[in-house]
């Protein structure tokens, strides 16, 4: 008993210390990164947070409910264009940001339901192609709705979008806070961090909720889930709507951060990238998905240093680094999946599913031994 107690307190203390350290690290991250790598990397850090939000949104649909969605970027686009239309000179509307973001979540959620409703009967890969088609439909409409009525300004996109900000403080340029000049990208970091943490929190709470367990049940066996009294239709629709609304919020943030949106940003490749983050990190496991989002956002940027590296190694640039960058990225996807098929950081239950039977047996025997003792 005392032994257990000590372990309990020390575990608690270790967790507490780790928690505080992580918090400090997150708070200091932009300054550390900015000082060591330059402000360009702070911007990348902002994008990392944005992609974490997107990946967590898709994780609800793919990771929890097991519905393969290849058109997730459509909801991102809906959120971004809603923000762009309601807060730019394009229509001359300038609604407050904090009204548009929830509105974006709502509208994107409705789009999610619209996509979900006709596809409820479809199985795995049929669902994938329909969602993919839906994503393309949205993009093509955005690309072409500049005539006869100029709604989206076509391929040129919408520019001069109102920046994110509150109370007259715009986060697009640096501003003064308590006598210190704070560059906008730093402030954006804290804003995104707060929202990302909120989405992590919601995801965590959803995971163990009644709804979250219903999603996992559907993922594992839809027929059995239905037999257990789960209303699969409503629960699936809810997964689509929830995932989509996260995408909508991220889209709005993207538009306000970037100040410019065009259909180019919402290409199918973007959907695939977000899906890669979820699967590569570890489907349905929040820390894994976050890791996936961080890696896949940072890796292509880090690979920009290939050019100088080539020069250092061979004395000249052998292959154009821009070409080599994505090649290495693709190779990384293959290698990681082959060596860690369940993802880089899968949840414990999934890990157990894919570990060899001998290992499982060993674990079980250990447990038995513990129980007997």
């Amino acid at each position, binding site marked *: 008993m005392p032994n257990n107690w000590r372990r309990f307190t020390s575990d608690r203390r270790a967790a507490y210390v780790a928690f505080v350290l992580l918090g400090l690290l997150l708070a200091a991250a932009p300054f550390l990164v900015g000082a060591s790598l330059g402000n360009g990397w702070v911007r990348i850090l902002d994008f990392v947070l944005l992609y974490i939000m997107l990946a967590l949104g898709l994780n609800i649909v*793919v990771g929890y409910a097991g519905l*393969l969605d290849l058109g997730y970027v459509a909801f991102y686009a809906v959120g971004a264009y809603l923000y762009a239309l309601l807060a730019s000179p394009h229509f001359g509307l300038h609604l407050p940001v904090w009204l548009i973001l929830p509105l974006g979540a709502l509208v994107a959620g409705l789009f999610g339901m619209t996509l979900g409703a*006709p*596809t409820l*009967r*479809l*199985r*795995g*890969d*049929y669902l*994938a*192609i*329909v969602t*993919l*088609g*839906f994503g*393309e*439909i949205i993009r*093509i*409409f955005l*690309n*072409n709705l500049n*005539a*006869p009525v100029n709604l989206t300004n076509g391929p040129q996109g919408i520019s001069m979008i109102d920046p994110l900000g509150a109370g007259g403080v715009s986060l697009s340029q640096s501003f003064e806070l308590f006598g210190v000049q704070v560059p906008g990208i730093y402030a954006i970091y804290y804003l995104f961090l707060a929202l990302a943490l909120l989405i992590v929190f919601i995801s965590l709470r959803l995971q163990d909720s009644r709804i979250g367990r219903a999603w996992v049940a559907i993922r594992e*066996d*839809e*027929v059995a889930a239905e037999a257990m009294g789960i209303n699969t239709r409503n629960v699936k629709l809810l997964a689509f709507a929830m995932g989509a609304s996260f995408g909508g919020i991220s889209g709005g943030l993207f538009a306000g951060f970037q100040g410019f949106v065009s259909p180019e940003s919402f290409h*199918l490749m973007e959907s*695939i990238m977000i*899906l*890669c983050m979820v*699967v*590569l990190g570890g*489907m349905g496991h929040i820390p894994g998905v976050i890791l996936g989002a961080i890696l896949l956002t940072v890796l292509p940027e880090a690979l920009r240093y290939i050019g100088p590296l080539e020069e250092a190694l061979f004395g000249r640039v052998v*292959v*154009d680094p821009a*070409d*080599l960058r*994505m*090649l290495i*990225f*693709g*190779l*990384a*996807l*293959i290698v990681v*999946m*082959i060596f860690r*098929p*369940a993802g880089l950081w899968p949840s414990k239950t*999934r890990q157990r599913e*894919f570990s060899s039977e001998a290992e499982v047996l060993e674990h079980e025997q250990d447990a038995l031994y513990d129980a007997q003792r």
Partner: protein
Amino acid sequence: MVPRQRLQQRNNILDIFLQQLINGLVLGSVYALIALGYTMVYGILELINFAHGEVVMIGAMVTLAVVNMLLASGVDIPGIMIVAAGLLVAISVCMALGFAIERIAYRPLRKAPRLAPLITAIGVSIVLQNVAMIIWGRSYISFPPILPMTRHEIGGAGITDLQIFIFLLALVLMAGLVMLINKTRIGRAMRATAQAPEIAGLMGVNVNAVISFTFILGSALAAIAGLMVSAYYGIAHYYMGFLLGLKAFTAAVLGGIGNIAGAMLGGLLLGVIESMAAGYIGDLTGGFLGSHYQDVFAFFVLIGVLVFRPSGLLGERVAERA
């Protein structure tokens, strides 16, 4: 004045119809060839081979590279022979590629969770695109005008020798494939593996060999389709495989993925729908939607079909697992 104008308009609409039907069937037969590659692999492994479109692209690029090399060397042989030589090289390269892709990216993951091979497929596709970009550059490569392009008139619509050739070759290849699958020993092994891989293995079928063969076969068809597309449009590009693959996959799903006849039907149907949409969408909507909505139209048709037939046009209803 008015009736005559209307008559002319109607004639126009009919001409457009025939012309678009011809274009659609030709394009659709190419889609069908590519869709067969998707559907055969899916039938056996239940895997979306996302990299298949890139194999088509490699086929087109290799053909063009060989053709241009032969032309530059100044050998005096007819254009068709030059293209045939290029195609032979492309087919061999693509077969090797298909075999390698399966061996490296899919086989180690056969027992892995379902989405893992999808991610490696995406990885392979990115790698192939970038390899092609490094080898052949970012610009469009044009197809040299060495193929006969005589235009024939049929009832107000035109069709070129090349179009006739593409369509007929595609039909012959599809007929050959059906024969192969239904009449030969390896075809029977393929069907058995598609139905139940483990039982097929117990019955003495070498399942791994069958899977490799399927990939090789699909890649050979992809190489031919690659030549057809680049000859038809007159250009090739390192990025062409993406959209082609997407269209062909859509066609396969439309027909019912895993179903050979479905892939052919879906391909032809998608080709016709697309070119009809390109020809008529402006008139139908009073100029509100232009021809650049043809892709949207194709996807709307796909979604519409799947809502009413969730397993595609010819797909069997799969009982949900108990």
